[in-house]
């Protein structure tokens, strides 16, 4: 299994999954903002995407030039199969890790 990802990279990875095919940096930024309330740095997101790409968890492609952005292309990112698998395992792990714990710390019995 791959080594644990830094927090922002994990956020970006999950955002890629949630956004499906339409993930470019602004959309990822908004998704993270919605989930965690942080106004992430766009450049930071690019750096995270860069790392994910290097580790084979994501890949990028240029869109066709779009009229509303002064004819500039967007760079879109997608999860690779490895990326999808990574998210699945992280989620399972997190579910196990947090089972039976409440944030305030008092114990709950298992059902």
């Amino acid at each position, binding site marked *: 299994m791959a080594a644990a990802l830094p927090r922002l990279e994990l956020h970006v990875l999950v955002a890629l999954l949630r956004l499906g095919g339409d993930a470019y940096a602004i959309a990822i930024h908004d998704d993270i903002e919605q989930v965690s309330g942080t*106004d992430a740095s766009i450049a930071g997101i690019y750096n995270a995407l*860069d790392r994910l790409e290097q580790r084979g968890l994501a890949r990028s492609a240029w869109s066709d030039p779009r009229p509303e*952005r002064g004819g500039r292309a967007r760079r879109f990112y997608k999860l690779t199969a490895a990326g999808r698998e990574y998210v699945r395992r992280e989620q399972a792990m997190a579910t196990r890790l947090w089972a039976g714990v409440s944030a305030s710390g008092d114990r709950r019995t298992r059902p």
Partner: protein
Amino acid sequence: MPPTVVRGLLRALAPADVREALLADLDEGFERQLRNRGARPARRWYRRQAITGVVPLIRMRAQRRHLPSPTRETHMTSFDAVMRDVRYAIRLLWRSPSFTLPAVLTLALGLGATTAIFSVVHGVMLTPLPYASPGGIVTVFQDMRARGGPEQEWATPGNLVDWSAETTLFASVASIRQLATTLTGMGEPEPILGEQVSRSYFDVLGVPPATGRGFREDEAVPNAPRVVVLSHGTWQRRFGGDANVVGQRIMLGGESHEIVGVMPAGFRPVIVANAEMWRPERFNLVTPARGAVVLRVVARLAPGVPIDRARAQAATLAGTLEARHPDFNKGVGINLVPLQDQVVSDVRPGLIVLSGAVLFVLLIASVNVANLLLARASNRTRELGVRMALGASRARIVRQLLTESLLLAVVGGVLGIGVSLIGIQALVALAPSGLPRIEEVGLSTRVLLFAAAMTTLTGVLFGLVPALQASRDRGPGTVTSSGRGAVGGPGRRTRRLLIIGEVAVALVLLVGGGLLLRTFAALQKSDLGFDPTDVTVGFVIPPAARYPDAVSRVAFYDQILERAQAVPGVRTAALASVIPLTGGDSDMDFQIEGAPPPRTPDESTVTWYRIVSASYFDAMGIRLVRGRGLTARDPAPEVVINETLAKAHWPGQEPIGRRVRFSQDGSWFTIAGVAADVKYQGARGESRNQMFIPYWHRPEGGIALVLKAPGGADRFVRPLKDAVAQVDKDIPVARITPMTRLIAVSIERPRFLALLVVLFAGLAAVLSAVGILGVMSYLVAQRTPEIALRVALGARAREVLWLVLGDAVRLASIGVALGLGASLLLTPSFGTMLYGVSPFDPLTLALTSAALLVVATLASVIPARRATRVSPVEALKESSG
């Protein structure tokens, strides 16, 4: 649009492959912010994105460096290019220490000196005073010019009261005067200095006591109970920082005072720099005194009133007061001076001269480095030629060379900050006592920013000319030629011009330093009208509470004089209420017998006066030009006047035997003699009317003991204290000082200024000598084939020597001529900083010019001798090979 500069920086920083996408995304985010939240938040968002983007972008760059990328070179950003130039420059400079080391050291000296001086200018002149909104605080003077008086006269209590009532002009008004008294009941009696202030002092400054409170209205009226606010230092030193100090009592001048507050640490007193306490004036505010100007007044302008409007309002107010009190306020204007300007007014000219001097040094340092760079560039002709032949553009070469010079400047600047740290410490340690705000001098952020700006500026300044010169396209021959064979080599004229400029600037500095040095010498030699040799003074204040009347004070003065005279080794002991060069003085009205009594204050006759013992003239060595001195226990009261007073009131007549008195019903004093003028305010002070009055007829509180006693002041400290303690154990003798020391202190500032300017001038001369040495060596190397040819044709060593020396002397002479011209233009601006020497002093001009010519000649002796050793065979072989 997003902020252009920020966007440009991001563009430079972003790796090529994501650059367009990142910028487009950020633009999109910016536009969304603009739509949803407005222009300012959008710009703020963009800036924050840029700031938080720096680290990730640099990381991405670092990651890319390890990856092979075919697009890297073609997509190279300016950032990449700059980094490459920097790396290249570091390698080059590191490899040629014989060039880099002198260049960096020269720059470090120049930039260090500049930064050190700027830190003084910044701390003393530019930093706001440590009060709340200090810009709104002004000193309020009576403008007495209409009455032939000074522009900045202190104020009467009456005017203080009237000014305070003007609430549309002043938010608050306060008076201040020095308070010198004695602290008793805490061990040995100690003299203590403070400020006696009106109630609103703390309001004007906007600094309340840190503990306790300021003064109440009922504490500032006649016969109110005595209260006092302590300075932080006094609270720490004398009360060990006792938290319960408020409410305790101390004895000041024989009276019990309740401590009501303690000022915060770092509080800056307005007029008494080392004040230890503040206590309220107890004015009669109902019928305030209007005769004597005894108060320094500061005020805070009403909120929103700018200084111009305040001045206009003050002029109107002066008119109103003139009409209301015609007897006292006729022709009395109101002069508002911002406190900041007031505090530094007498040091500003000196600081401006120093700033100019140090910038000149920096200029010479820059020129030297430019020279070194030129020499180096000519050695690199081949390298640069190859690069240009391979397609490097001229801009590319200039950028590379500028990067090198900037790098040199940055290294020099960093070392310079180290130099300036030492310099600042030395400056603060050597600074004359009483230099205002010297404690605020140090390396602050703004000083560092200044250093950085100067570094960049010099880097571009000295780098640009050589860079443009070196990058000039010199045709196809450049690559093959050796780079030094050509007779008219590159930059020869430039270099000669630099030498001329350097010599000219150095001469201006030398002339300035010379004039200031002569000023100092003149001040030191000047005759003040008394003989300070072996004279020691010490100050004694009999507290009014214990010596309330004339009889008790005369008895006290009689006794201390007698005891002091009995101290072994004392030749003459004397008393005087005013001592030369201590700053204080007092004046009063007097009437001349037979003259009509004055109808208005304008018609009254005024004189400065001192209370003295009969022995004073002897002890101080003051010459009597007519008549005789005072005699102890004169049957009828007598006074001595000075020459100025005699000339003012009895021109061409005999003043001796005339009588004067000091109040309408007072007794008459007969003039017994005329003393030579004494310059109480120092050599530059004017000669004032002076009257010497026997202490037994007018025993005012506060007097100085004057001892004419060979053997050094230190010997007499203990005996003098003991002598006074035998009379009254609660009275200290303060500030026991030799008169020669007071003179030294009074000329400390001109000495300090002369010292620094001469130091800078010396530095400038040495740097120009180094520059001349470098350039002449270069020129000799350039002319080697020519010289070889001359030698081959039979020229003698002496002729060759003169060939080079003559060239150097010619250049230096042109520089000296230009420097003389510049000096003549600049030195008149020294104005009052000069004393006893004309700004066009021929001796100074001649000596400095000669000195600089000698230095220039000596500096070119080494290259000239090298020229005489040129072997024609070797040289010609080399140049043809």
